[in-house]
């Protein structure tokens, strides 16, 4: 590519392409893409009450154990978080629960090896309370629950 006019117009076109997703900001149903994005992260207004869908475990004594998102899938926390939400939205919470329980059954380190039950839940939390030390949810809905079936040693 040696012609300056061609490069000039191609460069301008590239810059216009990069800026083109800006229109999404004013669409009713904005759609993000890759690599041309309107970079909506950090732009949404967040209410103090937040709902999060996640996995929890219970051990033999009924104590609650926090379960990592990696039991539900790979590819990073936010990707798995969205996939968990999609499972629940599509009415497939039980499938997700079984998948996480099957992955958990292969874990041999404490405290995961003591977990006997997995739950898929949506909890509602108040951000100010949470970061002031009160980590209890205002509300928690259980979408699915399943037992962890481990092979008999």
């Amino acid at each position: 590519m040696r012609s300056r006019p061609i490069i000039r117009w191609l460069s301008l076109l590239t810059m216009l392409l990069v800026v083109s997703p800006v229109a999404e900001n004013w669409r009713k149903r904005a759609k993000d893409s890759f690599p041309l994005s309107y970079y909506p992260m950090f732009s949404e207004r967040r209410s103090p009450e937040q709902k999060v869908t996640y996995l929890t475990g219970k051990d033999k004594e009924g104590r609650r154990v926090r379960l990592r998102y990696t039991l539900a899938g790979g590819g990073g926390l936010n990707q798995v978080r969205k996939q968990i939400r999609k499972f629940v939205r599509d009415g497939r919470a039980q499938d997700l629960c079984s998948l996480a329980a099957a992955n958990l059954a292969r874990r041999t380190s404490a405290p995961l090896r003591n977990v006997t039950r997995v739950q898929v839940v949506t909890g509602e939390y108040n951000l100010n309370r949470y970061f002031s030390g009160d980590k209890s949810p205002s509300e928690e809905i259980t979408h699915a629950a399943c037992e962890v079936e481990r092979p008999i040693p």
Partner: protein
Amino acid sequence: MTSLIRRFDGFLFGELPPQRLALLRILIGSFVLFYVGSRYQMLTAVAQSDPQTFAPVGLAAVLAAPLEPLVFQGLLVVTLAANAAFVLGLLHRVTGPLFGILLLFLLCYRNSWSMIYHSDNVMVMHVLILGLAPSAAVFSVDAWRNKTSLIAQPGWQFGWPVRLMCAVTALTYFLAGVAKVAGESGWAWAQGESLRSQIAVDALRKDLLGSGAPELVYVLHDQLLLFTLIGAGSLILELGAPFALVRTRASQIWAAGAFLMHWGIYFIMDILFRYQLAGLIFLPFFPVERLIPFGSAAARRLRAALGRRVHRGTPAEGHP
């Protein structure tokens, strides 16, 4: 119109040495090689996610269903091979654009599983520009074979890709700023409350999904004034990005500010924007070729040290 074009040409076609473009190719290409290569297992695991979570974006939108895992692994291997050729500057006219397209497709596919990550956008655009530009005129296998290094002089051919990389970088930050003020909060976003709640939501999710909230969030949550300063500062940085392109010095100050902003995000939110934190996204703003003498001197010292060691370590005759 003519005056606008002349000014744009003045920005785009400023002469630069071929070494800068070549160094950008090598440094950015090496980063991508490490970035994609070290994620081989993660990427193959993502490609085997539940097919119902597949929501193709960008180039991957041509796919009606996910690729077979083996096909995806093949694509990954070919991309890494093209990446290596890109770094070496081997058959650049072919491997440069090829690597750009392969990386674009790979990252579109990676972002097609219900979540679009915004950390790789500029990286792939930089690679596409470097792949299409004469970035292998020096410091490459092609240049060594064709002996073009000897005749490569500064020129506009080596300037426009660097300027375009800078423009693309600045425009993406500008877009991020526009999204904030065009959102529900409007200009009030700069008051800090929005930023604080964004950070808190991110930390809450991390805590509940098991990776743990960054400790700093608990410490800073009540410091609204701090979030106001950070919020206003980042908005000025983002919306001001294109204006900083007017002067080289201003663009370098802007790049340094944006670099620090990413480190701030890392410390407060524990978010790793690797391409940004490594500073590679901002390299086109700086005369990286000035590092060459330091590199050459270090290489000479290394060669001399190795030579001494080899000389001292030469086994005597008859020694086993």
